[in-house]
């Protein structure tokens, strides 16, 4: 290698190292920005000296009083409500979504295209509009206020068929020749689904269960609407939100932090544990829209 090319090579290398260093700094700064709020919320949940909002991060007196106080409120009830909703929704919604997406991906029937177009148009209506009437209907059925949990499950599950896009994208990628080969061997459509497609669909099944499970933990608007005024029927989002309203924030701010931590930990752990499937679902299906 001649001297000049050598120098150029070194220069390139130096500029690449410089570039990489900059990127490292950038990524570390980003990571810090993304994590700071969560550090703060954890630290504040251990603050004992005051229950209102303060301008500093590190507690002066540490303790688990906030966590202990949580159990003298309705928080455990909210937690159980949300957990039941999440588990039931995860199971039922997954069945509905998979039925829908599998059918739309695998079968070619006359109404398929019109049906998909119809659902696309339906999705353009703000869902909030439906809330008023669903509230009245559920109220007639006795599924609001303190009994809001079954009502919530019913509504989440019943309208979940519209969210078939991601898993349909997944089913589209399974070669159709598999189906055809099984058909030739005399399998019925049901057998094809059971014996061939389902064993191949583990990632998308887990993705669907995971997203369906996480949904109810964060749902706020509809849950608030139908549990209106009755603490026994609230989910964590609604209950904790009320603690931050202007008249309650001074008594309950640190308890909100503690409650938030207790809600976030199991969901986050589950999510990290199944992260692989989530990433696959998002990168594979979300883009095809």
């Amino acid at each position: 290698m001649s001297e000049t090319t050598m120098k150029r090579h070194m220069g390139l290398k130096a500029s690449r190292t410089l570039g990489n260093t900059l990127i490292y700094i950038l990524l570390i700064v980003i990571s810090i920005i993304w994590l700071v709020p969560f550090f703060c919320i954890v630290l504040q949940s251990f603050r004992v000296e005051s229950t209102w909002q303060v301008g500093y991060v590190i507690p002066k007196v540490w303790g688990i009083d906030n966590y202990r106080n949580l159990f003298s409120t309705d928080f455990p009830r909210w937690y159980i409500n949300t957990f039941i909703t999440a588990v039931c929704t995860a199971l039922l919604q997954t069945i509905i979504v998979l039925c829908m997406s599998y059918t739309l991906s695998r079968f070619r029937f006359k109404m398929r295209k019109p049906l998909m177009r119809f659902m696309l148009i339906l999705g353009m209506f703000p869902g909030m509009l439906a809330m008023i009437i669903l509230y009245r209907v559920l109220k007639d059925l006795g599924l609001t206020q303190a009994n809001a949990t079954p009502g919530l499950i019913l509504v989440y599950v019943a309208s979940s068929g519209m969210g078939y896009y991601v898993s349909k994208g997944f089913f589209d990628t399974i070669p159709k020749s598999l189906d055809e080969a099984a058909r030739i061997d005399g399998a019925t459509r049901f057998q094809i689904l059971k014996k061939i497609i389902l064993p191949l669909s583990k990632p998308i099944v887990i993705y669907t269960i995971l997203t369906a499970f996480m949904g109810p933990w964060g749902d706020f608007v509809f849950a608030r609407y139908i549990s209106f005024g009755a603490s026994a029927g609230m989910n964590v989002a609604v209950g904790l939100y009320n603690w931050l309203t202007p008249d309650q924030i001074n008594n309950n701010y640190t308890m909100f932090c503690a409650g938030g931590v207790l809600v976030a930990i199991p969901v986050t752990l589950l999510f990290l544990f199944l992260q692989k499937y989530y990433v696959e679902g998002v990168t594979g299906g979300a883009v095809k829209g």
Partner: protein
Amino acid sequence: MAQLSDLEFLRLSKGRKFLYKLGRFFAGIPKAIANVFIKLWTLIKSGILAIGREAKDIVTTFINGDWKTKVSYLIMGFGCLARGQILRGLLFLLFEVVFIGYMILSGGYWLSMMPSLGKVGPTEEYNEIYDLYVTKYNDNSFQILLYSVLTIFFIIAFIYTWRVNIRQNKIAEKILATGKKLKSSKEDLHSMVDESFHKTLLALPLTGILIFTVLPIIFMVLVAFTNYDGAHDGYISNLFHWVGLDNFNTMFSWKSASGTQSYAATFGEILAWTLMWAFFATFTNYFLGMFVAMAINKKGIKGKKVFRTILVMTIAIPQFISLLYVSKMFAKDGILNGTLMSLGWIDKALPFWEDATWARVTVIIINIWIGIPYLMLIATGILMNIPADLYESARIDGANPWQQYTRITLPYMLFITGPYLLTSFTGNMNNFNVIFLLTGGAPTNPAASSAAGSVGYTDLLITWLFKITTGADSKYYLASVVGILVFVVVALISLIVYNVLPSIKNEEDFQ
């Protein structure tokens, strides 16, 4: 704007090329809108033609059919029963019996009340036992409207089933004429997991969508033509009635009572901010997310997995926790202002949520914090699919990183994520959670609030709609007008983008 040939286009300078493309885009909009109407018209025309064909077929089947077929016109399933298809026949018959029973017992009543939505409101009646006046509740407008819509659904389903029943007869006659055997009930059952498996699978999801999505939407669209609100709730306070297009007139009129702003002006203001928000929320996330993904994926960067996990973790934490907490961090007495003040960088708390412009910028910035991890995941998946040899050859040709980005990465990303960008734009228009949990619409916009309850500078149409329904007067009719308008705006944007941008239509071309 005149279309240029390829050669003419290539001769333009860079800036001109961009201007030309931009001009073509806007020039395409009227044509796209016209196209929509043309398509709508052809759809209606083909619908009418199809109904005509069906009617003709019904008549000819009756004329040419045997007596079993003819009886089936009155007694559904008779033909099936007479020809030995017991299961099908019974189902048809059962449906007819249920339908007629329902129509006599309640359906007829609901339909007869539909034009008036109830005649007698709540009345005061003297009760002798308690010696006082008690309120007696009579007609219920809400129920009348709801059940008459349901009844109409039911009638449509009946007509469809009746039509199927006739077609069944025609097909059965044809099969018998060729000397073949009809399907037995057992075979019918078997087909539910085989040829008609899709019907079995779709039955449950579609019923759910019909009852819990379609029905409420139709109902709420109808509410826009009534005076349903807190003072006319249809049962306890007062009945509500049809008011025609009055609510739309209110919404679109520029006139208003003295000292208040008109609805049209308020709507315009909120719509402008909604579109602005959707634009910034979508594109800041898109480009910054892509940028972060590229940084993490760059060759020679170690700990990719750690950085990715940190970002992904923030998706897992329920939004109401992170958004509510961050909203309090930025409050006047929050951690951010407190820290900055104790560092001595500022003397006075920064008005993150108190000033209109500050609040608008802050929600967009916090939305970046929420959205980047998700975009980072999507972008990572796509970036990994770009063939490496594209970059290799670009480098050999002497392209610098910026050129590689604008010539390879960006076009590739835009082509693949075109549909995603559109859905994300419309999704952001209706992004209730971020706005409601961060600001609740604050700071209040006094001028706009005078027209329609409390309206803030960061309110989107969707949060405005929510405030209208939960506000003091609960003007449901107004909320439903706003909802319809949101639909119109979203549909228009989607249609225009789909029709004007070829890259979205033909995304497969690029792959």
